[in-house]
């Protein structure tokens, strides 16, 4: 990776206008609606040097994407640049004519978007869409343009470029689509590449490959990058310099290593401390949640925008307008905090109470569970095949895997939203595998509740936020009588740290974090013994994520509820889980206690998953990245032998393609389904070594 680029060569503060490729000064972007004007970016300044990779980090709504669109001169009908300047290669872009902008877009500045599927025109072939760039900008003929497109597809490591040109976007996987978008951006040989969350929504192993590709291409084409992301790990690995954006302002800027080693701004510190990492779990560290949430542009406070959420807020100092962006520490390290010199970084919180007890009888035992969806014409979608695992009372078992691994199907079967094709799920002596919710007795329904993934769909937009909580209390007879129900509701809201005034609001008036808290309260309203949490925080901003996870863990601990925690985020799983089940294409690849899975020998797939995680910690030695080849096969056409054989980097031989792997038992609970012998599995150093000290 390029993290070790000669940072000293850049002196951004000295004479930026003379040397920088992109120079933004005092940028103000407004969106003017009929009724009100929203200032998305009030006053923004930063610059990108030639050849540099600049990372713009921030959570949703901080104005980072708006900044990118302002650079491209594409703010829609209502958006406008109300002040400041954007100079690119000496040319002023604010107020540039449509013609000037057209000459720059796609040619001098190109962009890679989030969600590549929607960024590509579904009715045009890949070739036609790629060829447009040279046709527009390089004055070449159609044939030559197609030729260039094919060459570029080779460059982005897409197999069979000629054939790829004739395909339509929907015939490509997400990773391939993003490579096409990158190829499209690079075809004009731009001086600056804007990457707007280029890997959000991709599976972690695919993300990893795309990031490596970007790094490689950047070196080859000597392109400057403006990398926009909410993912600190990605930014840390891909960028030379980083700006932390919060509510339309850059609150801190420094060289990458410097920034992550000695973050000065309380928000930066909070952001770094609230993300889970592979090296610590819930017994060694509490995620430091940042209270509250990002203010809406129209509610931006005077003075420090982070003030209302900051533990070090000092009235009279922090609420004064016009806070300076002042040097702090090393050259080029700037911070917008009047108290940066006085505040110390909060130490990691002390380890909390002990975890669930392992020796208790199993609260839930899944054995040999299989779920097939007939697709007609004799074809079957194998969502789950012979899945077995168990959870003891008060234990958290995490199901991990990438999209399509069958973890959500499993969750639906456990809760009764779907039924198993075969196999058994035993709970309190009853087999519930084939009992759908409507067939379950009330007591069983009560004891299994679910927390869903999407805060925007978890609450009915037509009803008040507390509607479903009340309904749950009433339905399960937890309390009866209006007063008692309201009392219980207040207790539950208090438990999820929400003010009672929120109960009567409509979901559209709540933030994502608040909605997820309501969903947690709803799940616990029934006093369940088992909670199935399906990606409960994946849709939330990182600073909110930590708060919700910590809350969920607190309540689970307190109520001694068993929990199935479904997630694609290994670092998060490391943080919450007592036991881990790793799934791939409907089958269990590996299972064991969290310590065993994260600290011992691993299945090659688990290994690859862990190696794909990027940490912002500059002092941690870079992990040996395992690049996975190919794409996850379709669950309709699963490989005959080991499910993972088509992408495995440790394949033993033909046996992997033909024979289902045996279960290797490394300890009482640690099992790995692999053809590699136990000794071979043990011989590899663990990917996620605990942090020394």
């Amino acid at each position: 990776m390029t993290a070790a680029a000669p940072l000293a060569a850049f002196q951004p503060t000295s004479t930026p206008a003379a040397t920088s490729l992109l120079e933004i000064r005092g940028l103000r972007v407004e969106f003017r609606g009929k009724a009100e004007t929203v200032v998305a970016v009030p006053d923004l300044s930063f610059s990108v040097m030639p050849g540099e990779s600049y990372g713009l980090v921030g959570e949703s709504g901080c104005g980072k994407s708006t900044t990118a669109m302002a650079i491209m001169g594409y703010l829609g009908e209502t958006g406008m640049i109300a002040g400041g300047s954007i100079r690119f290669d000496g040319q002023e872009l604010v107020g540039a004519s449509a013609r000037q902008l057209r000459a720059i877009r796609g040619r001098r500045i190109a962009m890679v978007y989030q969600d590549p599927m929607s960024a590509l025109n579904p009715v045009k072939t890949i070739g036609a869409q790629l060829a447009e760039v040279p046709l527009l900008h390089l004055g070449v003929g159609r044939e030559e343009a197609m030729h260039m497109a094919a060459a570029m597809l080779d460059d982005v490591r897409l197999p069979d470029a000629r054939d790829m040109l004739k395909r339509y976007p929907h015939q490509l996987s997400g990773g391939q689509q993003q490579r096409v978008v990158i190829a499209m951006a690079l075809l004009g040989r731009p001086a600056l590449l804007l990457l707007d969350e280029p890997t959000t929504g991709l599976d972690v192993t695919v993300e990893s490959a795309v990031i490596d590709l970007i790094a490689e291409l950047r070196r080859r084409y000597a392109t400057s990058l403006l990398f926009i992301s909410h993912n600190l790990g990605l930014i840390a690995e891909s960028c030379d310099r980083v700006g932390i954006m919060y509510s339309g302002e850059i609150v801190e800027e420094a060289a990458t290593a410097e920034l992550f080693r000695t973050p000065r701004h309380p928000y930066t510190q909070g952001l770094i401390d609230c993300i889970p990492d592979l090296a610590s779990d819930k017994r060694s560290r509490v995620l430091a949640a940042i209270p509250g949430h990002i203010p809406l542009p129209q509610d931006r406070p005077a003075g420090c925008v982070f003030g209302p959420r900051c533990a070090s807020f000092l009235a009279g100092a922090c609420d004064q307008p016009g806070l300076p962006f002042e040097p702090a520490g090393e050259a080029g390290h700037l911070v917008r905090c009047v108290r940066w010199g006085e505040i110390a970084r909060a130490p990691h919180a002390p380890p909390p109470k002990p975890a669930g007890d392992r020796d208790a009888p199993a609260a839930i035992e899944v054995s040999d569970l299989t779920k097939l969806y007939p697709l007609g014409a004799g074809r079957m979608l194998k969502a789950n095949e012979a899945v077995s695992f168990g959870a003891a009372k008060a234990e958290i078992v995490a199901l991990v895997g990438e999209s399509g691994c069958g973890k959500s199907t499993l969750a639906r079967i456990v809760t009764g939203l779907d039924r198993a094709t075969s196999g058994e799920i035993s709970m309190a002596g009853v087999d519930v595998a084939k009992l759908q919710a409507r067939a379950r007795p009330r007591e069983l329904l009560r004891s299994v509740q679910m927390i869903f993934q999407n805060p925007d769909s978890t609450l009915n937009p037509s009803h008040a936020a507390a509607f479903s909580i009340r309904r749950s209390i009433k339905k399960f007879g937890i309390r009866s009588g209006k007063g008692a129900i309201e009392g219980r509701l207040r207790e539950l809201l208090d438990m999820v740290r929400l003010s009672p005034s929120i109960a009567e609001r409509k979901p559209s008036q709540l933030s994502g974090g608040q909605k997820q808290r309501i969903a947690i309260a709803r799940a616990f309203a029934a006093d369940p013994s088992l909670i199935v949490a399906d990606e409960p925080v994946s849709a939330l901003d990182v600073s909110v994520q930590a708060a919700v996870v910590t809350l969920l863990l607190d309540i689970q601990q307190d109520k001694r509820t068993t929990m199935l925690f479904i997630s694609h985020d290994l670092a998060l799983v490391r943080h919450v889980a007592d036991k881990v089940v790793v799934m791939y294409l409907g089958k269990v690849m590996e299972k064991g206690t969290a310590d065993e899975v994260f600290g011992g020998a691993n299945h090659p797939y688990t290994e690859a998953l862990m190696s794909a995680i990027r940490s912002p910690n500059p002092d941690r030695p870079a992990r040996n990245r395992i690049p996975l080849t190919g794409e996850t096969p379709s669950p309709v056409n699963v490989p005959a032998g080991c499910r993972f054989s088509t992408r495995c980097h440790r394949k033993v031989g033909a046996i992997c393609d033909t024979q289902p792997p045996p279960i290797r038992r490394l300890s009482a609970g640690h099992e790995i389904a692999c053809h590699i012998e136990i000794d071979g599995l043990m011989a590899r150093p663990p990917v996620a070594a605990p942090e020394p000290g």
Partner: protein
Amino acid sequence: MATFLFKRLSMMVLTMVAASFLVFAVSEFTPGSVARKSLGPFATQQQVDILTEKLRANDPLLVRYFRWVGVLLGAIPDPLQDPSTGLNFTDPRGAQYFGNFGYSTLNKLPVNDVIWDRLANTALLAGLAFLLIVPLSIAFGVLSGLKEGGALDRTLSVVCITFTSIPEFASGVFLVTLFVILWPVLPGTSQLDEGSGWPIASQLVLPVAVLVIYDFGYVARMIRVSMIGVMERPFIRTAVLKGMSTRRMVFGHALRNAMIAPFTVLLLQINFLISGVVVTELVFAYPGFGRLLLEASLFGDIATLEAATLITVAIAVTTQFIGDLGYMLLDPRIRVS
């Protein structure tokens, strides 16, 4: 493809059977029998009873329905043409052949002698209207969908909504008042009659205008909605940020996507026009299919009504089928799966 075609064809037959049976059943409510209608109002009740007996018109509904199907398929001869009825109903094609729609009691002619000429006239009217509706609605829809909420969009939208609020008889009244009475440049009736002193072309102007006014606004609104949806899609941004001009982006990227959904709507207009011409044809005394349909249903001419129903449903299902095919051609996500 073959299974798709087969599915469509069987769907069409099924719909035709269901529709024709429904018409048959609904016609049961009509006062007056086939015999009475065939004989006219001046026949004695005894004559009517005898004919009813001959035609076995008192058989249960289902029996008579299947008898009608039998006549249509050429399995049995048309009982009305039986010389013993004394009605003198004769079809030059014979009494028993495939596609025998029977005898029209209204026109005292075989249905096949009446209906096809009328259909051709209507096809001319509807075809001309369709040829105008397509480009007009695409132009209006695309232009207003380009910039949602802009001045152009608001103007065009008001025009479209206003036009769709004017039913054919009202626009007929307005246009006749303007161009026939106040400023007499066009004929008020369109009997496609050379002898009227007006060229055939001038006779078509007002009926076509009436159809276009009522229909194009609706289609334009559909295209507008689709266009707005497409303009909000991220690939439009991709195209613009490649350095494309608006014009190139619209023609190269937006238009084809925007036409996928409205394509079916456009084809449905053929369906609408073929039968929706009832009022227009009545206003302008146009000798078309719609008026035939109206007269047949008012008179209770079940044979003509059934024939018209089958043709209408056939056209409806066929346009639906063409719509699906076109949809597949326009959208590669369905074409190449």
